[in-house]
């Protein structure tokens, strides 16, 4: 699993690559929460994410809750394949702000 962070307009885009599971989900949580505590709006890009388990989803829920406390935005974009299935199975697709692309979030806020 790799993480890349890049700026796009008013957002920090966290691109996740590969597979997120118990071995690396804590790292993701810490990276994203660090950005949120610095008052950044977050877009988590699932485009190249092949797998995520419940520990990964739990990390994102914690980051999402942190963003609410800090009054920052938190979006997930381009969920597809197995990660999209996990979002649907856990019903977290009704909790997170999901969008098709980074551009869509940027336009709609």
């Amino acid at each position: 699993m790799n993480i890349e962070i890049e700026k796009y307009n008013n957002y920090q885009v966290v691109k996740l690559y590969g597979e997120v599971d118990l071995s690396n989900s804590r790292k993701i949580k810490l990276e994203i929460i660090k950005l949120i505590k610095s008052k950044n709006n977050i877009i988590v890009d699932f485009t190249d994410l092949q797998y995520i388990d419940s520990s990964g989803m739990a990390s994102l829920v914690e980051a999402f809750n942190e963003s609410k406390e800090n009054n920052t935005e938190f979006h997930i974009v381009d969920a597809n394949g197995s990660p999209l299935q996990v979002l649907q199975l856990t019903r977290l697709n009704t909790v997170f702000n999901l969008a098709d692309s980074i551009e869509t979030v940027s336009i709609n806020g």
Partner: protein
Amino acid sequence: MANKKVFSSCTSELKNIREFVIDSCRDFPLSEAKVNEIVLGVDEACANVIRHGYHMSKKGCLEIVISSDDDHALFMIKDVCSKITDKQLTPKQENLCKPGGMGLCLIHYVAEKVRLIPHKGKGNWLELTVKFE
């Protein structure tokens, strides 16, 4: 015939466990979406063993046994942790979206039957039954 493989309880082994499940499911009459769900269910069960059974120690082991019958596949996860009870395997519906109980809910969603197989000796034998589509 059953596919069987032993893995260490290191979290980095979860990726290898998922690949083993995918390979073993190739000959089963299951859609890609269902295989994805099964991989998730077995992964969640193994992660629970590593986290709660072995307390993240890398010194334990998990044996995965995958077999099939006419209309279903069986996924057995064997460990040598302290015995758990059926009650500990029962998910609470309100936990589905919450960190903590999410993994257990997913296991029960994926498998038609989740049960502990009684056996002599140490550890737990957890069996997931998945019906063919």
